[in-house]
């Protein structure tokens, strides 16, 4: 395959940044998208040009590190992570535009690399059960209906990549935040701190500068792990319920 790549280059956080066009040839349809980027970077390196920086690690769709905005879609045209996207999803001669995630709460570090520390801080605000190591009951003393466990798992499967934020016109982090709130709200282990968790995580999300949700569903449509919009509804319910009952507000 022969392709034209339009890639966002930005030297560092304070640089203005711009698109640079790179022609590339000899790409096999079996390559993953990131392997295609590897080929480009090898060519750039041999020519003595700075390789395009992008985040990636596990390359099997689970670590959530890769984060490219390809042709107007986070992780490209398929509902998967960029590392699991293969060149057979593109056609010969195509022009591919590659940008970083765009969101005020995800500042660009360099080229296609962004800082997603805001997600960590949302989890730090309450995305856990307050138990110390040791002194917990036997695992089978907490029976959980299979349906509930499965549903909680569906929320827990979020990989924290940030595609939901990148897809949203408001750069809202509701899908990410609600997935964790939902997981713990559904499970018996999460009941004790259910209200304060919703309050604190939502407050942190707002502090980080993520936008509000206007129910367009773009996040769900682009989520590589199929996290459902239902989570946002559940989070809203949790939050409103907390704001009525909680002593913290």
């Amino acid at each position, binding site marked *: 395959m022969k392709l034209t790549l339009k890639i966002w280059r930005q*030297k560092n956080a304070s640089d203005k940044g711009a698109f640079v066009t790179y022609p590339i040839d000899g790409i*096999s349809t*079996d*390559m*993953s998208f990131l*392997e295609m980027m*590897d*080929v480009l970077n*090898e060519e750039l*390196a*041999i020519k*003595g040009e*700075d*390789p395009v*920086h992008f985040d*990636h*690690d*596990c*390359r*099997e769709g*689970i*670590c*959530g*590190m890769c984060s490219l905005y390809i042709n107007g879609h986070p992780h490209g045209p398929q509902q*998967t992570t960029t590392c*699991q996207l293969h060149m057979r999803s593109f056609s010969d001669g195509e022009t591919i535009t590659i940008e970083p995630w765009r969101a005020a709460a995800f500042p660009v*570090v360099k080229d296609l690399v962004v800082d*997603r*520390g805001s*997600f*960590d801080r949302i*989890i730090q605000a*309450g*995305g*856990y*059960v*307050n*138990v*110390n*190591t*040791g002194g*917990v*009951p036997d*695992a*089978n003393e*907490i*029976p959980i*209906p*299979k349906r509930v*466990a*499965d549903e*909680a*798992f569906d929320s*827990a*499967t979020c990989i*924290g990549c940030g595609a939901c934020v990148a897809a949203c016109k408001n750069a809202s982090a509701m899908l990410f935040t609600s997935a964790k709130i939902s*997981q*713990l709200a559904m*499970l018996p*282990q999460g009941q004790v701190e259910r209200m304060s968790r919703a309050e604190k995580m939502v407050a942190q999300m707002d502090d980080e500068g993520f936008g509000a949700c206007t129910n367009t569903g773009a996040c769900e449509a682009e989520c590589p792990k199929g996290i459902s919009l239902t989570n946002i509804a559940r989070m809203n319910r949790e939050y409103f319920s907390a704001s009525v009952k909680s002593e913290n507000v």
Partner: protein
Amino acid sequence: MILDSKSPIGPLAEKWTKHKFNSKLVNPANKRKYEVIVVGTGLAGASAAASLAELGYKVKAFCFQDSPRRAHSIAAQGGINAAKNYQNDGDSVYRLFYDTIKGGDYRSRESNVYRLAEVSVNIIDQCVAQGVPFAREYGGLLANRSFGGAQVSRTFYARGQTGQQLLLGAYSALSRQVANGKVKLYPRTEMMDVVTIDGHARGIVTRNLITGKIETHAAHAVLLCTGGYGNVFFLSTNAMGSNVTAAWRAHKKGAYFANPCYTQIHPTCIPVSGDHQSKLTLMSESLRNDGRVWVPKTVELAQKLRKGEIKPRDIKDEDRDYYLERKYPSFGNLVPRDVASRNAKDVCDEGRGVNETGQAVFLDFRDAINRDSEDAIRARYGNLFDMYQQITGENPYQTPMKIYPAVHYTMGGLWVDYNLSTTVPGLYSLGEANFSDHGANRLGASALMQGLADGYFVVPYTIGDYLAQIGPAPVDTNHPEFAKAEKGVKDAIQKLLSINGTKTVDHFHKALGHIMWEYCGMARNAEGLTKAKGMIQELRKEFWRDVKVLGANEELNQTLEKASRVADFLELGELMVDDALNRSESCGGHFRLESQTPDGEALRDDENFAYAAAWEFMAENSPETLHKEPLVFENVKLTQRSYK
């Protein structure tokens, strides 16, 4: 130096309890005066950092990823073992201990393995309390599946994403301590060196990957939870960033490196498809519960398959060789990983491989789908089947998967005693980064168990004994050793940047990977290993003469990061070859062609090799010194491992 394993004396089942009682304690008010550095935030690192912070220690946690949640433990698929005996099928702590010792081909330390089995039950309790959504039965209790090398069902799982769920559990515990101010987090920060003062580990040197700033951090103890070194092979199932740098630099500061030649080649991975390939993808071993492994009985049929003249479904049952079921009737498709991998290599070497390259065997779900329905199989392995289809473009519900072995895990690592302390006092190593527990071959679903055992339930006890002895006097980075280590790191970076040669870092990494896979992979012999040693030495020289590392230190520079890691792999590779040469027996994942039984199984030499080989770094480009820790078996009888 004599290697003292510090294994407690007394009956096996009482060792850990007794040892905990005999360990000194740090009183709660004093704990906050101690600082502990944890490098790596995978299962071992995150669980250790969280647990130590809960106890009251001041913790600094470092990872090279942008968030601790991305450590490569996240990618573990199949499950985690624990001797709960929830299935009433005869499991016990002793049986898990025995299976692990035997699975490791009698090359691990009895006391450590027993402790691992003992605390395995606590891990499951801990994870459930954190809200880890394990698979459950309709009655609401936990479900189990079986895994290779065991005849009981003791593996707990969360679909095919068990590592993810366990890591997110540990990450949540860690995040909670960050919020409490007990852990300070340093993401996108790479450890570049360990600082030792008077023989004790007293801190580390790091590089901020965004700004390039070289910094020093002091502590009373340093924990290396930095994973394995499988990426020395370039192609492996490891994440792209997984590296040996932290462990290797510690090694050069005095920590012995044990059994580096023990690498696990996982039998069920997606085969290599071309030169562009950057990594190999694992298909969980749990698939062998329902998938049947086969190749055609004849080379002729295999050739027709390779040319695309026939489809796998066209081959009748009587023309298929379900070779694992045939050779190992009692374990069948669930033989341990080393046995499954070697057999796949053998049938492909005979010319019966099934893809274009001839380097693949089938993993077929036809019979399981006919027996249990497609929906049942989808419920068990849906995400794995999707991933397979995504990568290969083939639908495994309709046509058998093609699989081939790939480098997956390294049993070798920093030598540690029963306390998980390396040979440098104050320097600990946890999880895959150490050499303990798995011997010469790790059983499936045991890596997650070991990482969490070390972090949640072992090091929080053993570190107290050391800290109580050295006392809580404050530490700082003013000692000249810090400045010296910092300068060493800066000089090494400058050297890499100044070569300005003609070949890329990946060029050298791939070349090293080829050498390792060819001569130090699934089958090894003295001739090949000797050749490989020379080739690695040459390649290393060429690297330092001709590598091209662009850019500067004072910026995000992924080429520089890679170059610095590959430089360490180039040194480690040679030590792996030395270790493989020295161990002229076969055991577990280390298969020396010179040492096999008449029917081609690994043949151990217990008289001469029942020891852990711990290597001591002497000087740059000099041979390392071998120290032997004899392995004493008081409870199990060493036998020829048989899964027939």
